[in-house]
């Protein structure tokens, strides 16, 4: 792998909630244009680690570097300012509004307080076509769209505002098979644009086929961080459950 400098480095991250130690010395590295799968069963610390990066939680110890510079992320707006966007499992869209209104929600284009509706519609059209998303009419309320189309709008919103790092928290959990495929195709498109993507999922098959690297968490610490294809699916499952890394003798593909 050609080693570009990492987009995100999270070093020695520790976090406790009262007496419960959620993370101990956890690490995460994300490179431009890759999909990093974060795995672990419930309570392994993966969502806490991600929330710290997204600004929804604060670490007790450790440092975060974005593009090599130390970053202080105190709230979601700090994260956004650094080009970190999060897509949540429960879609953050207003069903009663159309796609352009949702895309620009909270950052509407305006002049003297008046909406620049046409400009927003044109920009929305461009943003969606850039990701090869086809939506029949942009004037339709989002509520009338399929789950996949809505997730597509969330994604295009997340990447519209100069995003470098995209966190996707179970982005396909609420979707059907066809729609999941559409979201994954979109993600491939984003990858090509050099965005670093953190992909959290419980679906091992999906993670295995889709991510470039994985990191497995267990009990709040990293078990292993490696290219996904260094292991078989069964080996990954066993590491998630046992929390012990599997040693390999046959590392066939030298990177």
């Amino acid at each position, binding site marked *: 792998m050609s080693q570009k400098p990492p987009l995100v480095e999270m070093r020695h991250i520790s976090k406790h909630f009262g007496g419960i130690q959620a993370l101990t010395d956890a690490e995460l590295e994300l490179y431009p244009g890759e999909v990093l799968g974060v795995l672990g069963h419930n309570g392994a610390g993966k969502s806490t680690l991600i929330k710290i990066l997204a600004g929804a939680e604060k670490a007790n110890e450790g440092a975060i570097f974005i593009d090599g510079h130390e970053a202080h992320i105190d709230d979601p707006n700090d994260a956004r300012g650094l080009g970190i966007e999060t897509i949540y499992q429960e879609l953050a869209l*207003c*069903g009663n509004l159309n796609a352009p209104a949702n895309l620009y929600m*909270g950052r509407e284009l305006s002049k003297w*307080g008046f909406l620049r509706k046409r400009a927003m519609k044109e920009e929305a059209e461009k943003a969606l076509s850039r990701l090869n998303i086809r939506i029949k009419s942009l004037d339709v309320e989002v509520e009338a769209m399929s789950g996949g189309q809505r997730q597509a709008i969330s994604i295009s919103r997340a990447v519209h505002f100069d995003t470098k790092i995209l966190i996707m928290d179970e982005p396909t959990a609420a979707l059907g098979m066809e729609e999941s495929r559409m979201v994954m195709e979109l993600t491939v498109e984003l990858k090509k644009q050099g965005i670093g993507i953190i992909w959290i999922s419980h679906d091992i098959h999906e993670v295995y086929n889709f991510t470039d690297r994985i990191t497995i968490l267990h009990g709040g610490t990293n078990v292993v961080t490696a290219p996904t294809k260094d292991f078989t699916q069964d080996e990954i499952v066993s590491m998630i459950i046992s929390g012990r890394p599997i040693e390999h003798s046959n590392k066939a593909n030298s990177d």
Partner: protein
Amino acid sequence: MEFAKIRSQPLVWILLVAVILAIVLSFLSPFFMTVGNMTNLSKQVSIVAILAAGQAVVIISGGIDLSVGSILALSAVVIGALIQVDVDPMLATLAGLMTGTIAGLVNGIVITRGNIPPFIATLGMLGIARGLALVITEGVSYQVLVPFFLFIGNSKFLGLPIPLYFVLLTFLIVAIMMHMTVFGRHVYAIGGDERVARLEGIPVDRQKIKIYMLSGFLAALAAVVMTGRLAATPPSVAQGIELQAIAAVIIGGVSFVGGRGLVVTALIGALIMAMITNGLNILGISSFYQQVLIGMVIIAAVWLDNLKTASR
């Protein structure tokens, strides 16, 4: 295809109902479609219509404002008391409008900072503003016989009564705010899903405060028209009128859950209610039946709306 699009417009339906009602009433009574009666009708509708414009904005944002009748009375009383001590009528009007806006501001702050549901917060203000109106006047009604208010109450411009201009201007401005500005977009977003609006960086609390200030301001504007019409400011005026304003909004087809509906339909809702009252008066039917009928119309309006939503 085109027909389906037209059919799905809430404005078309409610306008149709209003037109049919007007036609039926004009057949039933030769007096309905007279200039005199129409003037009368537009005066009757003006107060509720102005309140309904504000109420529509509040309801679209997912809230409710029960205090508009009391704020109207308090604003009117402030105007009356100032006129009583020979303050310039324009200044008195300004003070009245300020009073209503501040009452709305208090509503907004209590709802957002105090985290108190709009129903409770404005129910409290309903008591507070009415009580203050009674305290200021000690229960007495002031006469307001200055030319400025007599003009508002009794004059016509281009053949139309002045209160009607207040109504049309109010709806024009509120409609522009709701459909063309960032503020209006935020109102719809907050009514659609407040959690999402917050997550996406909309200043929800600030916009809510503005919404209740607008409603308070329009209640005070209605007070100006009311003062003109009555040439007096009785502190007990407009009791229960908030329910008429809410009814006008609901009959107009604005969703009570928030996020959906057009402000203009509230004007037509107010017109339908006024036509029912006016028509039954002309036909000599007891006003007791009017209340029954309007009650049934409110339920029918929401029922029809449910049918429409279910068929989607």
